[in-house]
């Protein structure tokens, strides 16, 4: 009798993790992967105002790529994504290295740099909208200081508006990248550094040749986190430029929203969502694959 109970308890213990995880697993299976499949199906259908399950092949994709607005949005994503990730990492690493020099009140400074991360993109966007507005913000202030020819009108210039987005996004995220790298810098084996400096390597050389290369995994996490921030960027655009001037700073997420919820074009919206997903997959899978395989070989 006792042994039966014990076996039951044993079995329960073995099954417990699976039972606990099952609801969450099922929910994700349905609400994430299930709806990805649904969206893919819709993107091949002739849905407009209401979902419609008649398939029409690639027609929605053809329409999508003939739309000027989509091509602008997609190019913007590439520009925005690349510059945002690159600049955030460069600034983040520099800040981390500078903070790593055992300076005073490091805690306070670290907090100041990290704090923008605690703000939502909507607030960042609104604040930067005012800062970058030529007649309210920076331009007026600098001119009132006497530099009359100063001009900073990115946000009202259709060629530069996307860089205005980059600027606000970098301000928000580089502190986070800094924190990421700072913790990694702190965990670098001090003996190697000592050995290198005994051998006469300069500080710059130690960072460039030894410390940073040893932090490959941190670069990877930074890129993964920043690129998903870039691809899902929506609120920043809404708050900062609202896609303007014209639609020159719109991003694919905004395009998707506009088509699906404002223009009764669910099919085109779904097609754009699938292209966004495909972009993520196309960039991230090879990268993850090479990085994960690389780390196994080390």
């Amino acid at each position, binding site marked *: 009798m006792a042994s039966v109970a014990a076996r039951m308890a044993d079995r329960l213990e073995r099954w417990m993790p699976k039972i606990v995880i099952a609801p969450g697993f099922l929910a994700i299976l349905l609400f994430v992967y299930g709806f990805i499949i649904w969206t893919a199906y819709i993107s091949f259908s002739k849905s407009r105002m*209401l979902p419609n399950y008649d398939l029409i092949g690639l027609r929605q994709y053809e329409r999508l790529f003939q*739309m*000027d607005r989509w091509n602008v949005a997609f190019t913007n994503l590439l520009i925005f994504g690349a510059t945002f990730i690159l600049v955030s990492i460069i600034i983040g690493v520099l800040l981390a290295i500078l903070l790593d020099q055992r300076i005073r009140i490091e805690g306070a400074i670290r907090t100041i740099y990290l704090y923008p991360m605690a703000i939502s993109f909507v607030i960042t966007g609104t604040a930067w909208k005012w800062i970058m507005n030529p007649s309210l913000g920076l331009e007026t202030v600098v001119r009132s200081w006497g530099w009359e020819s100063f001009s900073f009108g990115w946000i*009202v210039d259709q060629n530069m508006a996307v860089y205005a987005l980059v600027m606000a996004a970098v301000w928000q995220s580089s502190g986070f990248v800094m924190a990421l790298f700072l913790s990694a810098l702190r965990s670098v084996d001090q003996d190697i550094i000592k050995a290198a400096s005994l051998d006469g390597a300069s500080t710059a050389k130690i960072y460039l040749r030894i410390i940073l290369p040893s932090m490959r995994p941190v670069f990877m996490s930074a890129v993964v986190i920043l690129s998903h921030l870039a691809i899902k960027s929506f609120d920043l655009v809404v708050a900062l430029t609202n896609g*303007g*001037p*014209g639609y020159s700073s719109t991003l694919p997420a905004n395009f998707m929203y506009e*088509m699906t*919820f*404002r223009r009764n074009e669910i099919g085109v919206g779904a097609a754009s969502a699938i292209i966004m997903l495909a972009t993520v997959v196309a960039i991230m899978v090879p990268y993850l694959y090479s990085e994960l395989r690389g780390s196994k070989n080390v």
Partner: protein
Amino acid sequence: MKSLKLALMGAIALAAMPLAAQAEPVAEVLHYWTSGGEAKAIKELQQAFEKRGGKWIDAPVAGGGGDAQAAVLRSRVLAGDPPAAVQIKGPNIAEWAAAGALGDLTEVATAQKWDDILPQAIKDVVKYDGHYVAVPVNVHRVDWIWANPEVLAKVGAEVPKTWDEFNATADKLKAAGIVPLAYGGQPWQDATVFETVVLGIGGVDFYKKAMVDLDEEALGSPTMVKVFDQMRKMRDYVDPDYPGRDWNLATAMVMRGEAAMQIMGDWAKGEFAAAGKKPGVDYICAPTPSEGGYILNSDSFAMFNVKGEDKKEGQALLAELILGKEFQETFNLYKGSIPARMDVPMDKFDACAIKSMEDMTAAAKNNTLVGSVAHEIAQAGAVRGAFLDVVTAHFNSDMSSEEATKKLIEAINLAK
């Protein structure tokens, strides 16, 4: 069938008598009027409905100018449980009707003689296949110039009556260092100005051909090129900070005398009123140059297919109240628009509203009343979006007028 009709009429008559109906009329109303004068206005309707013994279920969806509401509506209809009345407008009504989701208001409409009191342009919107499926609430005029007379006086000008005059006045203002046109660079505002220019330069027939029928010949015609040329000129008349500016901030520029004029629908009046400005004294409202044209924007409630006697009664009562003279007056006084029916006494309204009503009545008679594209009356979401995209792309870049007309045709064909 006839007896059923009679029974229904009886039911409506009963519902009309306070506390007399056995089944309490119920109406769930889905709307996005959640702020300011609009919220007050919808409250009026709720009170009137309850006074007549109805049970009002309020379903406001805040935000997004109706985008959020559209998502709610879509899921409710797909789930087979639509609300009784939903605030939708323009061709969206026809799209829902084509999907078979809307009820039939013929009974109320016949009893209340809607055919005699509504202008044709509005009937085109709220009728589907000969049946009334929606009730219009108001009319906003889109083609207005809001001008600051003091600023115009500085260059000895008056509100322009032709587009040539407009350009001449604007040049004078610019030379005097005044911003001629207060402008908000958002796609819908670009399109608002664009359609007034189409109406002014092309005339009513051209507007109907190009904007309503989407006739390719008209869209690619030299007249359309001229319209884009005028838009390019307007670009010189706005200040450099215009991109992204909200319309009410542009209105404030006119109020403060920083700019001379704004082209905007009559919701701008609310901003002037809130600042305590008087029409004719502190600001002037005048139609944008055109030959008797009138671009209208109208909100309406579409009545969905609901099940159950109480809900149907509620719907009929609601429809009757919405188009009733009393509600049309109170609501539109709050909202700053004018009644959708043409027989409401206008003595409580301000000068701009009275002018708007006179012009609408005249335009309805002369058949020069047209629906707005920028505000989704003449075209549904997709085609309207195509207009917005091209107009805003042209306005914000150095695109030539010829290229803009070409792109306009392409974009519209894609969206159709």
